[in-house]
């Protein structure tokens, strides 16, 4: 990450616009945000939410990359694409509204396929966030990002379900911790009948900033994690893995095999296909039938707007956290299921 712009001070205009967030994460974090360039792959509903959140936060630049064209399904969650733009490229169609969110951020659109981009392109960003990609694409992006010390995120939303994955390599960050309070000197009871003494000056709760570091597993290991449900320890470990992890695996596998998402235009066939993949995934992961509800196929079509908002909110905040190098990031998955209000942070593959 380039640190040179850190020297520049925030202007009065920026201070006014970002006032409410500077009061939360401080000026330093805001300066770092202003220096960050982000590549966002995939401009469906989740991509739109991520774009909105990080452009509002005041990053330096955002590249929207998507080779596909907008369709009817975008109307349920992709608010950056005007309805009149169905049939147009998603990245280009999202450009205008994204830019309007914050004129201080440089927003560009790229209609390429990420698979056709060379490694140098990927390494030119501070952060890469890939949505709507299959596992082959994701694994390659993760590998290139780690080579180039780029912060890598992946995420997707399928109906009521959604996930985020983060590989920040070895991530350094600052965390504020409370200093243990010094025992206040008690000078009371010296003189009887006197008003109880009060300190002339009350110290504010003291915090101190501690530098920390965290290591992340790569996506390949995270997705390939095997579970041994025969041992008690394996069972315990498995209990901590939310069902949504396995649902995510099934849907990523569908994407990988079909080169498309489950679609309402092929509802019944896709449901059948997903059921088959469910069995396979459970088998290869070595977990029992109850780790994935059979009726998940009822809830995984389209991208539900509120689910995009939840997952895109978490994803956006994690990108802000990583860029500002403040606070411990979620390592390494977040899973959301709108069927039971579950929202888990789970470490898989380490």
């Amino acid at each position, binding site marked *: 990450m380039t640190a040179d712009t850190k020297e520049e001070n925030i202007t009065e205009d920026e201070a006014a616009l970002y006032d409410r*967030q500077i*009061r939360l994460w401080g000026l330093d974090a805001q300066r770092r945000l202003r220096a960050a360039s982000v590549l966002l792959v995939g401009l469906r509903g989740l991509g739109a939410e991520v774009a909105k959140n990080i452009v509002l936060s005041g990053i330096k630049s955002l590249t929207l990359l998507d080779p596909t064209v907008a369709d009817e399904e975008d109307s349920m969650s992709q608010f950056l694409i005007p309805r009149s733009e169905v049939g147009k490229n998603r990245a280009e169609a999202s450009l205008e509204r994204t830019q309007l969110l914050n004129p201080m951020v440089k927003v560009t659109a790229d209609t390429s396929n990420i698979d056709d981009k060379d490694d140098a392109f990927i390494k030119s960003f501070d952060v890469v966030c890939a949505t709507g990609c299959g596992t082959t694409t994701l694994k390659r992006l993760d590998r290139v990002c780690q080579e180039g010390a780029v912060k890598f995120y992946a995420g997707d939303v399928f109906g009521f379900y959604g996930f985020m994955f983060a590989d920040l390599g070895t991530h350094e960050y600052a965390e504020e911790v409370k200093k243990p309070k010094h025992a206040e000197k008690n000078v009371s009871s010296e003189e009887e009948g*006197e008003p109880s003494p009060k*300190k002339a000056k009350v110290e504010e709760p003291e915090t101190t900033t501690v530098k920390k570091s965290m290591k992340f597993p790569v996506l390949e290991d995270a997705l390939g994690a095997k579970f041994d449900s025969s041992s008690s320890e394996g069972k315990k470990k498995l209990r901590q893995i*939310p069902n949504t992890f396995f649902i995510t695996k099934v849907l990523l596998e569908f994407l990988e095999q079909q080169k498309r998402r489950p679609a309402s235009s092929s509802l019944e066939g896709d449901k059948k296909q997903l059921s088959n993949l469910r069995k396979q995934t459970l088998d290869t992961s070595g977990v029992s039938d109850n780790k994935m509800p059979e009726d998940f196929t009822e809830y995984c079509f389209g991208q539900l*707007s*509120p689910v995009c908002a939840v997952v895109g909110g978490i994803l*956006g905040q994690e990108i802000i956290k990583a860029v500002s190098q403040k606070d411990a990031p979620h390592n390494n998955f977040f899973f959301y299921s709108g069927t039971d209000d579950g929202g888990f942070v*789970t470490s898989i593959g380490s």
Partner: protein
Amino acid sequence: MAATLKGVLQGSLADNVKNSKILVVGAGGIGCEVLKDLVLTGFKTIEVIDLDTIDVSNLNRQFLFRKEHVKKSKSQVARESVLKFNPDVDIKAYHDSVMSPDYDVNFFKQFTLVLNALDNRAARNHVNRMCLAADIPLVESGTAGYLGQVTVIKKGLTECYECQPKPPQKTFPGCTIRNTPSEPIHCVVWAKHLFNQLFGEDDPDQDVSPDTEDPELTAEAGQSALQSEAKTDEIGGIERKSTRVWAMNTGYDPEKLFNKLFRDDIKYLLSMETLWKKRRPPQPLNMTQLPSDTDGNSSAIRDQRQWSVKECANVFSDCLGQLKKELATQGDGGMLVWDKDDETALDFVASVANIRAHIFGIAMKTRFDIKSMAGNIIPAIATTNAIIAGLIIMEAIKILSGKIKSCKTVYLNRVPNDRNRLLVPCTLDPPNPKCYVCAPKPEVTVVVNCTRFKVGALQDKVLKSYLGMVAPDVEIDDGKGTIIISSEEGETEENNDKFLSDFGIRNGTRLKCDDFLQVYSLVVTIAHVEKLEEEKEFEVVGDLSELQPQEEQQQAANGSKPHNGGDKADEKEEEDDLMLIEEEEFEEEQQRMEEETRTTRKRKASSETEPTTKRSKTAEAQAAAGDNDVIEIS
């Protein structure tokens, strides 16, 4: 099309969404996000109400607004922006207060669901009551910084918003503000009081002069101070005049004001020697002999730089001049209203607070920090609002699926709890049978001194401010039906300055209090006492206080243990209702005090069957409470 596409929403849900009519209360941080999610998900009929206009500081998160919209109506601009996302939606926008009588119970009855996206307790209380009266499900929400929460309220099924007592307003004793400040906030409060004394509405509770009735002063000390006051010439004399009149007579002369406030009044305080036996005595300042400038980092923007005392004095001078002019434009009897977004008003408070802090040896603060304190600004970010709005819609979807019983209170944490949950769902509680709002026959006891408590205070401080009524009518339950307070203008105003005892109200008297708009009746039983603790004027007890020991018992039963951040799996499941609310800032001092950083938590045994969550988020709550960004109403 939206999400009512085939295969996305199950069964009749798609139709229920299409056919529902939704009221969104608030078009701010949460409201903008809620509106977006609604139109995309396929909701067809929406009404949104907000009395606020757009400010630059909204634009980092209220993404339906842009710079050119500043000063325009939030609800109207939000409507126009969101229609672009989905033009096939019928949206009606009201630029108005939801507490206005125009929005009566019949107005609320026309909706399938009400979604709150509010930023203050008064409006939340009111909408809660309206939804109870109309028997419409309400989804309530709030965010503060990184934290947020969503819950569902349904008459007879769940707790209402007011079933659990809220933490009391945080106020500072008058003598701390006037005589013995020890924290920056005390100086900020004093500075705002001074603003009002000089330019704003006269409020006897906001006196800025030394307080000779400080309980710390023994009778003797008070006497000697009074004597010295009598001796001093015009300085002592001015104590008898109002600060405003005196200041006007001097033509708001900066040096005269400065030397009175920061030299003579401080000397006077010093004469109350008892106060300074254990404290660092304040040091009077003379405007012509201020410590010299020690300007450090001048590269930082003005807001972020610590001003020197001399600089503060200059700002103070300039502000007096400007505010005097502004006041003059208001004409005779006019006044200014302090506003954190008014540059001069904020400059005034920042300079005055810092001068006073310097005098008392308290850390001085930047204008940026003083703005937070004086304006009670709660930090707010786009991501938290987006997440909470998403969760609101998910609860709304459950209600429309006919599964209101599976609705939850969901908390957004900053870090996952030890069950790995970042979003923590908790079972909804049944109504509190003793709730003074949603119980079948609400009752409450108010403790006052009937010979000293006025009818006006009963109306404004107890019934309106504390008990959340908008326009109360009060009748003494004495068989004669004496009406002491009427919501009709001009009927009972002459009673306001009379004491309760003037109407024969005494210990045990029952008052029938009604709010016609809220369709809410409450029986208030008066308990008379001579004196309340801590200078309190009144106390509301009875059913409310009975709740406290009960909770403590449950806490004990849960095997409550110290929460120091050590995250060990707790076998006993428990629920945390950390109710954090507030999305925006509050203008009112009272609300400011009330909503200020505070942690109260309620924990109880879990009734949920599935092995979910429930490990306490205490460590988190505590950590967050240190941030200045959490407003928790449990």
